[in-house]
């Protein structure tokens, strides 16, 4: 394919493909030789990609951690060569299971970790691993297509032998295309970045093929060397860093296997810290412990290393069995070779080749430039000469082609060549992040061979480090607050109004808590390797979902899920949760020591907390309602972020305005004022790095959820797949990423979209990614890729900043090499012609450009985005890390970011095709268009916020009160209108009246409020220099637009429904008297009716306790009571009444219980009842707050009748009277002042008691608390009960006592009425009756 690239795109070049590229041929493609290369670990991009398979299946999160830890360790032991050899062995396994990789992103990737994993886990079957890994198959296929074994290269001949890239014209278009495909396949499916090799033929063994080709470069020696080195390294005892904390004493004594001891529950950080605290060894520093345990630890390591080495041996042996050179190699010791510049031959040619190679990289004619760079750096760093034993006699070579083909068989030539290319790639290297640059700078050879490059990078690194430190301090701060973050309850979206009914609302309340319960238990348990999410929490997840599987609830849950995912998708806080009160910076350092580099690589598909969300999704597989809603929630969240213009920063680039117009440290949105319209072409938009990270995670999860229903493990049948594809092609995918990409190009927001898009695409399943839709999408991506090359930007370029070009290049490169992406997507024919493609400048120009001095203006924002968008740089770093550094130093490879997201959605800037309706609108549009972006943003946000604020103001200030009034008005109506129909009619009338009032208030209020707020907003936000008239115009436009919005709201929201959703139902309720309870309000405690003054000495509860205590004593221990007790209680009542406001039923209860206290005193200690006491008590009862319960309403009503009130008031009064009747027993405390119950309690008491009782009743009558009728009525009630003779006697006495008082008053009173006389007569009758019964 590369070949075709060149044909297509370099037509303006001086036919380089004819001269130079033809010299590079593919020859050998022996399985094992390819395998050799295949295994070369310098490839970076998917080395760690295997674990995710387990991740996906939702198992053994914890075990992964321990494995990973080991892998790190092991990685430093095994150098590239080892790995290569191991992989080689696996390449022999022709397993037709390529399809499986679609089920897992990691599977089939370049599998260094997997290899290591296999080595370190002998119990795991290699074949089983291989069956899920693709390289082998790909290689096999590749080999087949590469000429069906016509070349028979040996493994040792293949240092540069993975050169399936054939520029060999002799093979014809077809074969070369084929071979390129193979190349790309192998490239993507193996871990070799040795892309240079694609251009260089090697191998002696391929001489047959080589003779047919014009140039061959042998690499036998190099190959040998490498193999030998691999052996040496196999044998070498691994160097270990002592890693504190993870190795516990237990581990050293009990478990021989280091892996098993690393992170298991009894050994994880949590437990170890507590363990040591328990055993009280605080004095002993951790280091001491480690020193003590050193032997044990190293034994641990040693054992482990032994296992892996043994394994390696076996693999190597097996692998090399076929190698004819095996014998010759064995027994030889390898020595490191020093590079000597003098030994470089044919510099001129090498330099030209380097230029060409560099040009190819610059033009993006390679799938992934990072692979190339990684290879070059490794090449530069190679320390062993593979050609040692090969004669390099150039004099014997006859043609220049021969020379060229053998050029790179010279070790020194190779290094010189690499250094030349790297020098040319100075600018691209400068784009890398500071950590990566540091890794490159560690190379001695970079320093010695390419001092210019080194100096350049060193300077850049310093600049970048400064920018980084700024960011990291910022990051640390934000991390500190991250512990246990939960999704904050959002009033606007979470309250009852957002649910169809109370049922759903209440259920969601529970679901929310259940969700967090699951999350918490996951947090506690997930580090335990034996703990399994599905087994332990699966039921809970399903329980949560089935609690109420209502679409709205599921939507809310999906939203909650998404928000929680955003909050916790950073895995850095995983340990923080487990270890509160920890120094975060120390923790971070410790973490790096423990787990670097792998945790920071991409080997975890779902690192840290993301595992929870993945498992949750897996457990909710059968709950379609949830998964569908989740899809929507995730997508909408992502698109909000993607499309939000609030969040975006704009950067202006290159040429005349190369300044970053946003301030360096600002995390807030700084808006670029682009007065100059020209500049807007050179503008592009970015978002904060945190947002990029978040979007990447969401993108990944969308991919996961979307492909969930289509992916499966196991054997794939191509026929079935084809059918699936055919069927599924009928349906357009839900998530229309294609249009998003196209829009991103138009909006110059590629930097926002591409990073998450590649994550999303990499997650898609085998079938989905092969649908026509995605095929077309890849055409677009491919076109973008070709457009964002390293050449200087012109106006048609999608990205203007070189840094942003770089980010998009690497992101896409990563995707193109992703194992999940079908190989045939590398099709130059896919390039779209309708998207402008930058024409390729002549070769010479290109080189000039790449040599041009790098523009030192670095954009810190882009730097941050680089971190966030390209986490795979971590793998890249590992891939080219110098051997020594890997073993001796712990180079930090952090690279993850926190995600904080608050967004306001905004409509996309493009796509406004609506034609202006009128000239006025045209004018407004033109005016706004003439404003700078920042001003437009101000207008947008003002419209949005002010309209919302005005509506809220109106709701609080008017709507609530009017609604209340309307409702109570209707309730009053309901008293008079007793039938349903008229009441409904009346209700409508009333509501309409109030509705009109609301509308009036609206017009009065909102316009003014709106203007006030808009003016204030513009005053605050616009600079002083803004012309006053411009400001006014802006204000008026804004107000106009707000008014439109407000009007919409008014139409849809101010309607009858404010007052009643269902007038018929409400009317029915009113008639049945159900709704009336609210008016009484006596039994309900509402904030309005409880006001306790906490500054008062006597608090209500103290008074109540006193009351209860006195009742208790009066009932059981009357002898302990004193008159003072009672008097204090009564006196204190006044304080309670005057100082506090209590619910009205409290007053009734107080009055009632005071009565009960008096009655108890009458029964048990009548001597305490004094005139003084009664006077005081009556005063209390007459307190205005008690009047409702002590003085019946009838007296008040008499007075009220006289008042000449309007209709409403009368209705209201009538209503109250009705209520009083209905609730009389509740409110009137004396309604049972004479009762059989009390008579029973008085049984056996003296006449004295009855006399006191009688006097009390007389006083009550005197004080008008009760009337004679009441006494009559209640006395009659007494006869319902069968009394003993003596009691009847007592009753007669009592009635007589009262009667005698009444007659005395009536005689004295001149105002005695007939009614009174009747009462007396009746009472006499009662007394007689009592006496008669007594006689009887």
């Amino acid at each position: 394919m590369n070949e075709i690239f060149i044909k297509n795109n370099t037509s303006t070049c001086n036919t380089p493909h004819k001269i130079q590229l033809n010299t590079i041929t593919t020859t050998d493609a022996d399985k094992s030789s390819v395998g050799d290369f295949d295994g070369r670990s310098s490839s970076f991009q998917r080395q760690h990609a295997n674990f995710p398979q387990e991740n996906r299946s939702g198992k053994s999160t914890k075990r992964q951690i321990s494995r990973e830890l080991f892998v790190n360790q092991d990685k430093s032991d095994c150098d590239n060569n080892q790995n290569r050899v191991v992989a080689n062995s696996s390449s022999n396994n022709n397993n037709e299971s390529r399809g499986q990789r679609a089920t897992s992103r990691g599977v089939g990737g370049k599998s260094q970790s997997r290899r290591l994993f296999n080595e370190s886990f002998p119990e795991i079957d290699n074949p089983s691993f291989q069956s899920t890994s693709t390289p082998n198959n790909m290689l096999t296929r590749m080999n087949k297509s590469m000429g069906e074994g016509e070349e028979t290269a040996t493994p040792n001949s293949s240092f540069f032998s993975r050169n399936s890239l054939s520029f060999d014209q002799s093979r014809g278009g077809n074969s070369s295309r084929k071979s390129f495909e193979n190349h790309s396949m192998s490239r993507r499916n193996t871990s070799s970045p040795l892309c240079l090799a694609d251009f260089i033929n090697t191998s002696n063994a391929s001489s047959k093929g080589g003779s047919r080709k014009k140039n061959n470069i042998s690499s036998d020696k190099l190959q040998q060397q490498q193999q030998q080195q691999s052996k040496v390294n196999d044998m070498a005892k691994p160097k270990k860093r002592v890693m504190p904390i993870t190795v516990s004493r237990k581990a050293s004594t009990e478990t021989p296997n280091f892996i098993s001891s690393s992170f298991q529950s009894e050994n994880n950080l949590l437990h170890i810290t507590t363990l040591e605290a328990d055993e009280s060894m605080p004095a002993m520093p951790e280091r001491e412990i480690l020193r003590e345990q050193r032997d044990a630890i190293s034994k641990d390591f040693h054992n482990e290393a032994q296992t892996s080495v043994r394994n390696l041996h076996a693999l190597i042996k097996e692998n090399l069995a076929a190698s004819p050179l095996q014998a010759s190699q064995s027994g030889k010791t390898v020595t490191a070779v020093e590079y000597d510049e003098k030994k470089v031959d044919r510099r001129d040619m090498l330099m030209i080749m380097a230029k060409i190679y560099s040009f190819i990289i610059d033009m993006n004619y390679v799938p992934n430039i990072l692979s190339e760079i990684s290879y070059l750096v490794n090449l530069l760093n190679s320390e062993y000469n593979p050609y040692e034993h090969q004669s390099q006699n150039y004099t014997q070579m006859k043609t220049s082609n021969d020379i060229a083909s053998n050029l790179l068989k010279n070790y020194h030539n190779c290094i010189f060549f690499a250094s030349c290319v790297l020098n040319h790639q100075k600018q691209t290297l400068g784009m890398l992040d500071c950590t990566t640059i540091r890794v490159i700078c560690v190379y001695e050879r970079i320093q010695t061979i390419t001092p210019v490059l080194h100096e350049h990078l060193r300077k850049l690194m310093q600049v970048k480090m400064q920018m980084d430190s700024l960011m990291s301090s910022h990051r640390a701060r934000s991390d500190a607050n991250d512990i246990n973050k939960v999704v904050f309850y959002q009033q606007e979206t979470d309250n009852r109004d957002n649910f169809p009914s109370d049922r759903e609302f209440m259920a969601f309340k529970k679901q929310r808590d259940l969700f967090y319960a699951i999350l918490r238990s996951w947090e506690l348990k997930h580090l335990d390797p034996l703990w399994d999410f599905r087994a332990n929490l699966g039921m809970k997840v399903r329980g949560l979902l089935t609690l109420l599987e209502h679409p709205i609830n599921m939507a809310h849950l999906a939203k909650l899920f998404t928000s929680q995912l955003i909050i916790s998708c950073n895995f850095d806080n995983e340990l923080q949760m487990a270890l509160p009160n920890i120094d975060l910076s120390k923790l971070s350092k410790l973490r790096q020591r423990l787990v670097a580099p792998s945790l920071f690589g991409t080997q975890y598909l779902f690192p840290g907390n993301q595992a929870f969300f993945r498992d949750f999704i897996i457990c909710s597989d059968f709950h379609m309602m949830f998964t569908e809603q989740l899809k929507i929630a995730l997508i909408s969240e992502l698109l909000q972020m993607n499309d939000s213009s609030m969040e975006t920063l704009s950067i202006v680039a290159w040429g005349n305005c190369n300044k970053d117009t946003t301030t360096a440290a600002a995390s807030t949105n700084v808006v670029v004022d682009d007065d100059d319209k020209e500049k807007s072409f050179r503008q592009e938009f970015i978002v904060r790095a945190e947002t990029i990270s978040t979007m990447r995670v969401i993108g990944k999860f969308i991919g996961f959820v979307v492909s969930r229903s289509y992916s499966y493990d196991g054997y794939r049948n191509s026929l079935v797949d084809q059918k699936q594809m055919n069927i599924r092609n009928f349906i357009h995918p839900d998530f229309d990423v294609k249009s998003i990409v196209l829009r991103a190009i138009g909006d110059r927001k590629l930097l926002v979209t591409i990073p998450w898009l590649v994550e999303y695409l990499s997650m898609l399943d085998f079938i989905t990614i092969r649908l026509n839709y995605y095929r077309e999408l890849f055409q677009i991506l491919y076109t973008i890729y070709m457009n964002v090359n390293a050449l200087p930007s012109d106006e048609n370029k999608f990205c203007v900043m070189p840094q942003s070009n770089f980010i998009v290049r690497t992101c896409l490169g990563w995707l193109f090499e992703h194992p999940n992406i079908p190989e045939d997507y590398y099709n130059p024919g896919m390039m779209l012609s309708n998207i402008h493609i930058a024409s390729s400048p002549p070769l010479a120009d290109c080189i000039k450009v790449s040599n041009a001095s790098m523009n030192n203006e670095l954009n810190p924002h882009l730097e941050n985005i680089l971190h966030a968008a390209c986490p795979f740089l971590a793998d890249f770093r590992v891939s080219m890390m110098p051997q020594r550094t890997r073993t001796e130093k712990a180079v930090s490879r952090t690279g993850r970011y926190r995600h904080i997201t608050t967004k306001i959605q905004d409509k996309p800037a493009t796509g406004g095709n609506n034609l202006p309706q009128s000239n006025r609108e045209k004018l407004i549009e033109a005016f706004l268009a003439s404003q700078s972006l920042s001003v437009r943003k101000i207008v947008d946000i003002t419209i949005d916020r002010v309209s919302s604020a005005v509506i809220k103001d109106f709701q609080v200030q008017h709507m609530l009160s009017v609604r209340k009034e309307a409702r109570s008005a209707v309730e009053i109506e309901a008293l008079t209108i007793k039938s349903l129909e008229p009441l409904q009619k009346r209700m409508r009338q009333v509501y309409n009246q109030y509705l009109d009032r609301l509308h009036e208030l609206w017009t009065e209020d909102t316009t003014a409020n709106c203007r006030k707020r808009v003016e204030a907003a513009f005053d605050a936000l616009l600079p002083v220099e803004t012309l006053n008239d411009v400001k006014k115009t802006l204000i008026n436009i804004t107000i106009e637009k707000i008014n439109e919005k407000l009007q919409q709201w008014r139409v849809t929201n101010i309607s009858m429904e404010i007052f009643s959703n269902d007038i018929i139902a409400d009317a029915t309720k009113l008639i049945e008297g159900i709704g009336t309870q609210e008016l009484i309000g006596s039994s309900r405690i509402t904030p309005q009716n409880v006001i306790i003054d906490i500054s008062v000495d006597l608090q209500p509860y103290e008074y109540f306790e006193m009351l209860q205590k006195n009742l208790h004593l009066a009932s059981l221990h009357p002898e302990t009571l004193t008159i003072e007790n009672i008097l204090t209680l009564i006196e204190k009542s006044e304080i309670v009444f005057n100082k506090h406001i209590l619910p009205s039923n409290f007053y009734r209860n107080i009055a009632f219980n005071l009565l009960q206290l008096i009655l108890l005193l009458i029964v048990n200690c009548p001597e305490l009842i004094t005139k003084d006491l009664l006077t005081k008590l009556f005063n209390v009862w007459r307190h205005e707050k008690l009047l409702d319960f002590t003085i019946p309403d009838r007296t008040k009503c008499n007075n009220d009748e006289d008042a000449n009130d309007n209709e409403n008031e009368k209705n209201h009064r009538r209503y109250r009277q009705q209520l009083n009747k209905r609730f009389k027993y509740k409110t009137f405390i004396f309604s049972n002042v004479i009762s059989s119950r009390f008579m029973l309690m008085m049984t056996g008491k003296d006449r004295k008691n009855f006399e006191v009782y009688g006097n009390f009743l007389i006083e009550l009558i005197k004080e008008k608390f009760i009337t004679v009728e009441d006494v009559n009525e209640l006395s009659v009630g007494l006869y319902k009960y069968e009394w003993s003779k003596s009691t009847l006697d007592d009753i007669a006495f009592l009635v007589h006592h009262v009667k005698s008082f009444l007659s005395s008053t009536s005689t004295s009173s001149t105002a005695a009425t007939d009614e009174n006389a009747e009462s007396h007569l009746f009472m006499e009758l009662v007394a007689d009756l009592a006496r008669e019964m007594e006689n009887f």
Partner: protein
Amino acid sequence: MAIVSEIVYDKIIESLNNFNGLAIECESYISEKFPNLPKLTLRSIISKHGQNLTKLFYSKNHNKAAQLAQEFQNRMKNERSMLHMAMDYNCPPVTLCRIILNEKFSKADVKEMLKDPDLIPDPLLSANVYTCLFNDNQDGIIIDMIRVSIGEEYELRLKKLARDAGLIFYDEQDLRRARFDKTPDLLLAVQCMYKNTLINWIESKASFGDIESHKKYLNDQLISYTNRFGPGIVLYWFGFHEEILNKTKNLIILDSFPANEEFQKLTFQ
């Protein structure tokens, strides 16, 4: 107010179990035994103990109501019969009332009857209910009022202290009006730090925090608050059992409102 260690708490409970008589009479007895503990703490512990007894009694006798009613019918001689029966069963008197009344009347009626026992048709039963009401400090209309007013009072105290400390918050009413699904006493509108923990809300409990009720609060309220708003403070005005400190994560448990300077607030120059 007081943080009660497990040993002391167990002793209190033991004394309460050993006390033979009405709960209303045991307060002075207990405060004599534990003079160092604040009265309100003791009273709250006694009250919780009473509640536990009630629960225990209910769980033991919920299906023996008819039997109890019959027994009372047999024992009913004077107005104190029911009180004595309650003492025999070591059960709060009003609880027994309820059970027996529920046998004869509907629940709604029983509710009204306990507010005004004169509504009970049988005078002797009515007299018995009165006696029980007079002599129970665990249940009854006055006790309800005590509970409400204590809760109200301490909520007000909380608000006042919070306001004095310069905290800015929404109270429960604000939140209810805004139709929140869970409403802590105070939701801080502007968060603050207490001993380096971010505080989002404060819940006050005018009671003693024993293990059981704390567990209940956690499940009913506190965990929900942390789920919605993040970490916060629970204030047990009458003290709490030491152990609950160990059983709680992401919450700060206090027995009195922190001093002003213990809060770290967002300030601007």
